[in-house]
């Protein structure tokens, strides 16, 4: 067994709002090793997105511990987390979430604005990332001038441009047709195999899950394996 890149112990997330009270995750003990491609499955409302958000430190757990890439996330403050996420985590959304007024290249360049790279280096890195996802000829297109599949590939280029070791994807093919979905999954597979990225992907689609090297199931906030 290689080193654990993500490690949770009794990870719990409860949402309490006025009267009602939802336990989205309950005592989740999970270990994901470096270089794995994990598919996170389970019915709607089972807590898949919640788990992914906690791994990316986009939200704080209400109980238990979580360590990602050697950091106990609890110990980092807001600023440190922002910096840590920029450097180590690439996040891919179901709705792509590109910035509409920025071109493909500018969208991909965005995370590099937080690094010390010079403008020419940023352009070079962003171009390389876009070529990797097969969009070398779409650099100056705006998101609305691209198809859904192309938009998602720009989003993937943006997620990998800082060369993070961890890639998190929340139903990345959920809004795509079969062909585009296949392209996206193929790229995720390559990132995992050729570039050694650890990938955690939430999906409903058993076909998509086949690209993964490992599967975890969530049911009502609990891990069932």
């Amino acid at each position, binding site marked *: 067994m290689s080193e654990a890149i993500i490690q949770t112990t009794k990870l719990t997330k409860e949402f309490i709002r006025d009267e009602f009270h939802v336990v989205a995750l309950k005592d989740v003990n999970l270990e994901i090793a470096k270089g794995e491609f994990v598919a996170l499955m389970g019915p709607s409302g089972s807590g898949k997105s919640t788990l992914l958000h906690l791994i990316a430190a986009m939200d704080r757990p209400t109980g238990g511990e979580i360590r990602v890439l050697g950091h106990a996330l609890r110990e980092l403050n807001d600023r440190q987390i922002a910096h840590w996420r920029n450097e180590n985590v690439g996040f891919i959304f179901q709705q792509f979430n590109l910035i*509409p007024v920025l071109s493909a290249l500018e969208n991909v360049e965005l995370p590099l604005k937080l690094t010390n790279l010079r403008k020419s280096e940023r352009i070079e890195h962003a171009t390389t990332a876009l070529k990797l996802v097969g969009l070398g000829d779409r650099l100056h297109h705006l998101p609305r001038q691209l198809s859904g599949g192309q938009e998602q590939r720009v989003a993937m280029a943006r997620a990998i441009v800082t060369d993070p070791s961890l890639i998190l994807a929340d139903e990345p093919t959920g809004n795509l047709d079969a062909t585009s979905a296949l392209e996206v999954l193929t790229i995720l597979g390559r990132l995992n195999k050729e570039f050694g990225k650890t990938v955690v992907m939430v999906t409903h689609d058993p076909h998509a899950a086949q690209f993964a090297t490992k599967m975890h199931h969530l049911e009502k906030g609990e891990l069932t394996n």
Partner: protein
Amino acid sequence: MAIPLAYNLRNLVVRKTTTIMTALGIGLTVAVLLAILSLVNGLRTTLSVSGDPLHVLVLRQGAESELVSLFTREQFQDLKFKAGIATGSDGQPVASMEVVTVMILASVDNPDGANLNVRGLDQRGVEMRSNVHISRGRWFQQGQKEVVVGKSVASRFPDAQIGRKVHFGRSDWEIVGVMDAGGGVQNSEVWGDLNQVSADLNRVQTVSSCLVKATDAVAAKALIQSLNDDQRLAVHAMPETEYYDQQTGNAKPLEYTGLIVAVIMAIGSSFAAMNTMYAAVARRAREIGTLRVLGFSRGSILFSFLVESVLLSTLGGLLGCLLALPLNSVTTAIGNGNFAEMAFGFRVTPQIMLAGVAFAVILGSVGGLFPASNAARKQILTALREV
């Protein structure tokens, strides 16, 4: 390091109608402010070129203006030989006894008649005003019922033209020339021969004031001191420049009213900027969440939206300058302290425009602060879920 400026600029372009409307609102506010500042500036300039720092104006004790002052020929004889008064090429002291009165003439703005200052003075008095030159026609002649009118009088009063006659006192006076005072108040005056005017007004012995020239700045101070201390003379002496400065005092209410209007408008348009930016933050909630996921801090979100608001208001400020610029060619008139009409121009200078843009920037920062901090305070997940 920060979220690129292009992000803000392009968002302003994308919602161009809102941007233009908001900027126009700010622009109008800035234009109002500029109009007031340039009006006051124009008035100040007019008054400052009118006076000579070495000139000392002497009025009767207690008199605030030349119009209400009474000055006798005996006083003039005593005063002429005070120490510190410059001597002319003819060996005589540089001092001018003058009579000032008011006449009524129909002007462009006031067809029913507006007040004009009439000044009777001799050759010496004319020479002392080095800023005043004849631009058309000729000077009035001694012993003749002739007058010369200022440039603004000629342009604003249809009847004040060379060859025509105007009536004041007990006579009709022929206009023989137009004088240019280079922006000074004399552009708004009518000048005639001292003896003719004072005789016509029945004021041969008691004229209005006396203007003297000191040898230098130190002598001017001492002269004023000694004139004011002289109980027997009973006069009130002051630098000519200060006299015209005091006349600006009458512009203060105008300035304050204008500034109050500008401040009220500023509050209104900073609310407009705030409203626009709140809408922008709400519409771009998902982008804010995404930027945070990419690693941008709350601080850079705050800064970015603040910058956008300032860009918006700067655009407004520039529009305001554009709106105010044509004022430069406008000449207007107000009644000055002597109840006479005085013409002056708006002066929209680069400094004033800079002040206008700075005002817009402040307005945008204030208006943008709340929306920007609202954007920065959003939780990532809440922001991402909003549509």
